């Protein structure tokens, strides 16, 4: 403990010598010295208890006989059983196959899409950018639901237009749905990369006589390579950990995530489920470390002199890129349209008369599940964005003693598959003394922790944009850490706060894998209801539930737009007043 206080004191002494001269009272300094380590320790404990402890339970169950830690109990029997049973081992090959395929397809598709957005002068960019972000507002099951309606054994396109016997179930279905699901995630990275790289390099090469192909392969591609790797790593991670799409469209094609669920729920083999979790953790952790390493380099590549002025593209280039972007956007729109229309027609694809009957959900949860989801998500939004902002603030400006360590802990959740975390929560917290088990709070905590990484990264990048002199001014005028945070940092990062709020809200409304083990008789969630409805064969009602979630998330996004516009002007006023 002493070490922490000492460290905190040292940094405060070094960095805020000025305020002392301006006469901060000693009690205030005492509070400051107390607050920063307390907050830091609190965040560290939070991540320890709600992230590492559940993971530890999984490790224990997979490596030790009966889950009892001890040298004598150490066993590799579970792993032996896994690698010698052909259908469980196949799940690993299946997972790797679909993830690698998805990664290659998504990276190529999105690279050219981002290229069109940043390096060509096609029109309708705002539209294209908005469309490619659409998959974020829906649970990662909507792709599978729509693809079955279109290309299933009785699909509209396969069986009724083309009249062929081919269908999309299995590996193809998983790959196509994962591709459509991962587009926005990869796009954000590649778009940032391509807009940050100095375009004048391309121009220089061109004016020196390089052919367009040469410019592309020698200049454009190499300058974006870190972004490409990073997008690929993220896509791989998202695909291999996804549960919703494979469970719906995979049919007999089992992947690691669905196999964990099957082992636990069908055979009551929690130990094998934990073992497969560890096996799933390895590739996703590797992709994460690669991404972590690469994304640091990406920042280094971004040139401050980058100029986003794009020379007019040649007509042929413009036309072909417009067609390309239209095709990509069309496939996303068709997914959403299918699910929404599918929720309103009587019997797809036989009876197209409109009906609202699918919105009378034949499940116990029904509409109450939607409301539970909404208020759970509001708590997740507020809690998640507040904690990540405070954590980011403490890490970024107060530089606590073990900043690197806390930082590493906070970015780790991105590497942990939701399903693994959910299983860990059951194993770790289902004891009588953990009063929050079986309440909605465990879901709130789980979703916050699972999405901690992006929240903290965006908080930090936002805080870096705040001029430190404002904060220094506050401190020299006598504000302590708490006051500075609430009076200066919080109002200034209000837009970032709302953005984080919506991000957490959206994740909480749409996540399936993290909470499927945690829903209970008292807490039904809308996203899980979709799985249950589909599982029972009420596909149209599953579509209807999906539509409800999309509408709610869109409403929340609309509110954010209005709020951020309002606070945007307010913020300027505040800054000028200071």
């Amino acid at each position, binding site marked *: 403990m002493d070490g922490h206080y000492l460290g905190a004191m040292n940094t405060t002494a070094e960095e805020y010598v000025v305020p002392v001269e301006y006469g901060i009272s000693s009690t205030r300094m005492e509070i400051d010295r107390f607050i920063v380590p307390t907050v830091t320790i609190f965040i560290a404990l939070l991540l320890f208890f709600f992230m590492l402890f559940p993971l530890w339970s999984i490790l224990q169950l997979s490596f030790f006989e009966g889950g009892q830690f001890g040298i004598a109990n150490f066993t590799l029997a579970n792993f032996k059983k896994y690698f010698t049973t052909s259908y469980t081992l196949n799940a690993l090959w299946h997972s790797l196959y679909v993830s690698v395929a998805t990664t290659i397809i998504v990276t190529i598709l999105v690279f050219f899409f981002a290229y069109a957005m940043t390096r060509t002068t096609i029109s309708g960019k705002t539209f294209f950018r908005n469309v490619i972000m659409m998959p974020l507002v829906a649970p990662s099951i909507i792709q599978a639901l729509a693809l079955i309606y279109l290309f299933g054994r009785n699909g509209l396109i396969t069986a009724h237009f083309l009249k062929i016997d081919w269908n999309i179930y299995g590996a193809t279905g998983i790959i196509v749905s994962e591709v459509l699901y991962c587009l926005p995630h990869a796009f954000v990275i590649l778009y940032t990369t391509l807009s940050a790289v100095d375009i004048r390099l391309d121009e220089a090469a061109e004016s020196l006589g390089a052919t367009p192909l040469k410019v592309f392969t020698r200049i454009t591609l190499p300058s974006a390579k870190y972004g490409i790797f990073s997008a690929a790593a993220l896509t791989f991670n998202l695909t291999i950990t996804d549960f919703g799409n494979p469970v719906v469209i995979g049919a007999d094609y089992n992947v690691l995530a669905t196999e964990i669920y099957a082992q636990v729920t069908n055979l009551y083999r929690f130990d094998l489920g934990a073992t497969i979790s560890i096996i799933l953790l390895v590739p996703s952790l590797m992709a994460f470390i690669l991404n972590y390493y690469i994304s640091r380099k990406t920042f280094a590549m971004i040139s401050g002199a980058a100029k986003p002025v794009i020379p007019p593209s040649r007509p042929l280039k413009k036309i072909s890129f417009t067609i390309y972007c239209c095709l990509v956007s069309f496939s996303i729109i068709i997914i959403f349209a299918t699910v929404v229309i599918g929720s309103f027609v009587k019997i797809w694809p036989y009876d197209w008369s409109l009906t609202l009957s699918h919105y009378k959900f034949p499940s116990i949860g029904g509409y109450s599940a939607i409301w539970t989801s909404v208020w759970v998500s509001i708590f997740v939004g507020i809690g998640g964005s507040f904690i990540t902002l405070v954590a980011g603030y403490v890490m970024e400006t107060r530089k606590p003693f073990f900043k690197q360590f806390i930082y590493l802990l906070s970015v780790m959740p991105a590497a942990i598959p939701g399903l693994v975390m959910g299983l860990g929560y059951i194993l770790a917290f289902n004891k009588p003394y953990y009063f929050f088990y079986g309440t909605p709070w465990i879901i709130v905590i789980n979703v916050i922790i699972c999405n901690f990484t992006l929240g903290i990264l965006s908080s930090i990048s936002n805080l870096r944009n705040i001029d430190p002199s404002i904060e220094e001014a506050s401190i020299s005028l006598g504000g302590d850490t708490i006051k500075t945070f609430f009076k200066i940092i919080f109002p200034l990062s209000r837009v970032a706060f709302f953005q984080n709020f919506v991000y957490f809200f959206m994740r909480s409304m749409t996540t399936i894998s993290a909470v499927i083990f945690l829903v209970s*008789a008292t807490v039904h969630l809308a996203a899980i209801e979709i799985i249950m409805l589909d599982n029972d064969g009420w596909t149209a009602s599953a579509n209807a539930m999906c539509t409800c979630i999309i509408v709610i998330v869109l409403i929340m996004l609309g509110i954010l737009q209005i709020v951020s516009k309002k606070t945007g002007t307010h913020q300027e006023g505040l800054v000028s007043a200071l």
Partner: protein
Amino acid sequence: MKRVGLLMVCVAVALSITLGVAVAKETVVVYTSLENEEVVDYLELAKKDLPGLDIQAIRLSTGELGARMLAERDNPQADCIWGWAVTNMSEFIPKGMLVPYKPKGWDKIPAHFKNPDGYWTAIDLYAAALVPNTKVLASKNLPMPNGWNDLLNPVYKDMLIMPNPASSGTGFLQVASLLVMLDPDYKNKPVEKNKAWDFLKELDKNMGQYIKSGSKPAKLTAAGEYAIGCSFAFVYSSLKKKGFPVALVLPEEGAGYELEANALLQGAKHENAAKKFLDWAISTSAMKQYAKFKLGVTYPNIPGPKDLPALSTIKLAPMDFPWQSENRAKILDVWQNLFLR
């Protein structure tokens, strides 16, 4: 400031109202694997019959329910189980996870529908059935099957769908009934030597998919995705009512069946409320409601649904519940190694 104060008052009032309601009613937490659509219907009646109870229920598949109970063993979240396969139930008695309770009206239930010590009390029986899509059969010129043996006909290649016995109780009872019917000597040999596996291997050649839930084969078949779904009887009647082109075939060799039963859980936090619920769950009023869906209920003299054949006219398979319960893990192991790819 005033506005904030007003808001606080509103929140306080809202909170006290919700808490007040929660205090006035006794809570009972119920796990069930009855089909969602029935449960919604039954719960409406239960709310009317038991106004003092706040019934919190979740529907889980047969496998999911067992996994939940095991996971929550140290800290049971549920008070009782309602309508869960007896095969699975029996595995949990030796684990000490059930408490004997003989609900009111227990005596009226015939002895073969209840555990003699009161660990479980069955409410209904549901039977395996083949549900063909008549339109698909006609358009592909396929014959109407009469039973399991007809399904081996190569014309049905990839046109059949069946539940995965590991995740679905329906799938399990289908496989278990075949194991018992096709090998009269099943008791005296290890599970993997059973003659029925050869039959299942032949059947596998025609199987388009093994799917997680027991009702979904019928529903996907109704939607035209397959020609014949191996499912259970009442899902047929609900699809027929909705206007799907489906037929009902009870296998001529004998329809496998399963009992669905209720039980009180060890460590129930609301034991009294759970007992009230379990009393209601075998009351005449509840039984009459079950009979709207189920092929047969365990109270005598309550007729089944009009659109299903009467239970007495159906040839049931000779199920051996103690044997299949004891060998469940082994049966699933053999099945998964043979048929999961």
